[in-house]
């Protein structure tokens, strides 16, 4: 692979300091792209390490209600995957330095990739693309120096883990529990066991997501994994603020400060 990726560099730096990664997720274009840019910059200032940017899709089967509604609001505004790429270019032009991971479904990604290089994107996570279907995706991303992040689920049998690990670069995403994205009242009891069963198969950093909505759950994840992802819980804060006609920035900032246990 070409020079060390932004994601790898970030984890190297965190590792040197013994620090865990905070990986927030934003649905791009909710409520509009300007706000997404402002939220991204705020997250960088507040100490986020990687930004996951969701590409709005009409049929998000892996997402819970919060992310579905966010995607729908963005689509209602006419936000396209192309607009998301332009927003990323704008972030890069204005000095945004966090690694950016596109969180997307297969179908819009096929269209995006057909149109040319994904400038400014450091990694891609495709929710509905297991490695068995990912040959083309992998060769495209390898050639472009983009990390490919796959997900390991609680249902993943032991004998599949090596393939997920080999296909992943940057980090491996650990799905905390069965189900769609969205905050849970509690993380599963076997979270620690789930993370530790992956360790022997990979030296990649392990980031846990799905269902982390409180400081306690973030702290529990940080005690066992290398990073934690916060998506729907942040999305819900943004949704409430927007619903009340407010700028979501202050509320989102306050939420991020309250949840980050590091």
């Amino acid at each position: 692979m070409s020079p060390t990726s932004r994601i790898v560099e970030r984890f190297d730096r965190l590792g040197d300091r013994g620090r865990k990664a905070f990986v927030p997720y934003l649905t791009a274009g909710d409520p509009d792209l300007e706000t997404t840019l402002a939220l991204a910059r705020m997250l960088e200032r507040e100490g986020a390490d990687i930004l996951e940017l969701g590409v709005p899709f009409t049929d998000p089967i892996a997402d819970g209600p919060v992310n579905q509604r966010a995607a729908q609001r963005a689509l209602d505004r006419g936000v396209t995957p192309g607009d998301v790429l332009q927003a990323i270019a704008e972030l890069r032009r204005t000095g945004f330095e966090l690694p950016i991971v596109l969180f997307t479904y297969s179908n819009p990604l096929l269209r995006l990739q057909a149109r040319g290089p994904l400038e400014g994107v450091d990694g891609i996570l495709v929710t509905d693309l297991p490695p068995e279907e990912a040959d083309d995706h992998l060769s495209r991303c390898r050639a472009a120096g983009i990390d490919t992040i796959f997900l390991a689920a609680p249902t993943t049998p032991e004998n599949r883990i090596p393939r997920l690990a080999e296909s992943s670069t940057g980090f491996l995403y650990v799905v905390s529990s069965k189900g769609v994205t969205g905050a849970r009242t509690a993380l599963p009891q076997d979270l620690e066991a789930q993370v530790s069963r992956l360790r022997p198969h990979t030296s990649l950093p392990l980031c846990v997501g799905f269902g982390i909505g409180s400081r306690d759950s973030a702290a529990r994840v940080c005690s066992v994994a290398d990073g934690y992802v916060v998506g729907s819980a942040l999305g819900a804060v943004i949704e409430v603020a927007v619903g009340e006609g407010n700028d979501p920035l202050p509320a989102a900032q306050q939420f991020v400060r309250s949840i980050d246990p590091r």
Partner: protein
Amino acid sequence: MTGPFDAAGRFGPYGGAYVPETLVAPLEELTRGWAEAQADPSFTDELRHMLTHWAGRPTPLSRAERLGAALGSIEVWLKREDLNHTGAHKLNNALGQALLARRMGKSRIIAETGAGQHGVATATACARLGLECIVYMGSVDAERQALNVYRMRLLGAEVRTVDSGSKTLKDAINEALRDWVAHVDDTHYLLGSVLGPHPYPTLVRDFQAIIGREAREQILSQAGGLPDVLVACVGGGSNAIGLFHAFLGDPCRMVGVEAGGEGVATGRHAARFEGGSPGVLHGTHTYLLQDAWGMVNETHSVSAGLDYPAVGPEHAPLRDSGRIEFSSATDDEALDAFHRCSRLEGILPALESSHALAWLVREAGSLPRGCRVLLNLSGRGDKDVRQIAGREGVDL
């Protein structure tokens, strides 16, 4: 690299299993479960017994003499899936999968439904086998098909309406997939057509292929030869592939008829081959109606059962190679065919099946005299009576 899906579940470049990681293991389990069940005579015997003594198979093959004469001396044969229990071919698959689920130790069944026929068939099979049944249905469809919603409830199923997206079949499938991701341990997703990730397109086709096996035997014996032309409507495409599969090696012309809605040129239709392009939806790579960015378009058809933006992946290479021709019929053509069949044959056809009839009505003039046509009458139209009355200004 070898994985369970490598080379499996592919129809040329189409098909596959584009699913969240959480579903990979359950789909493998289903693939194995089906392979084991097929090899187990106690399973196949029970399925055959129930299809015969409970569902009413084999369904008859009826010569449609008056319709054939009205269309200019062609020979029309109707495969009467409308006489299958619950009034459509849907039960063949619902019963098969419900038996399979029970065999695999799954006690909870979830399903999606558009028109409600698959939901009713699933609720029926679950009632018979004592399985918990939850059916997801878009709220727009639930309103259009209130009768079927109540039928499902009478059969003991829970109907959950879906208010996201376009509130129709595609959103019901989204919601069923989300449910399944959260409840994979005890739940079987009983998918209703030859759609979705591997193994569903193959599994559902295997359960529906009984249509063609029966029809081939019946037409050889009743008509004394193979048909010249086979016709079926294509939503997901399970009744079509169910009929066609047994004839793929025969020199028969095959025609699949999609929903032309208000006309393909208007954009309000569900003609995926005519108006769509390859992409990935609901776990499979196939033709679908989408915009330039891969966003899935809403569809339109008078027939809720054909109102879906993707077509079963097995149809795609058969279309590319020309083995199956695809055409479409508009809402108006389907309604006209509905009336003709009702009055000439004493059969109220489902609006879905009326699309196949509409193709025949339109194209009969180009068929040679005496041409033998076998058409899949995939369901009965009782469910559509209220809607048709409404369109014609009759308040029931």
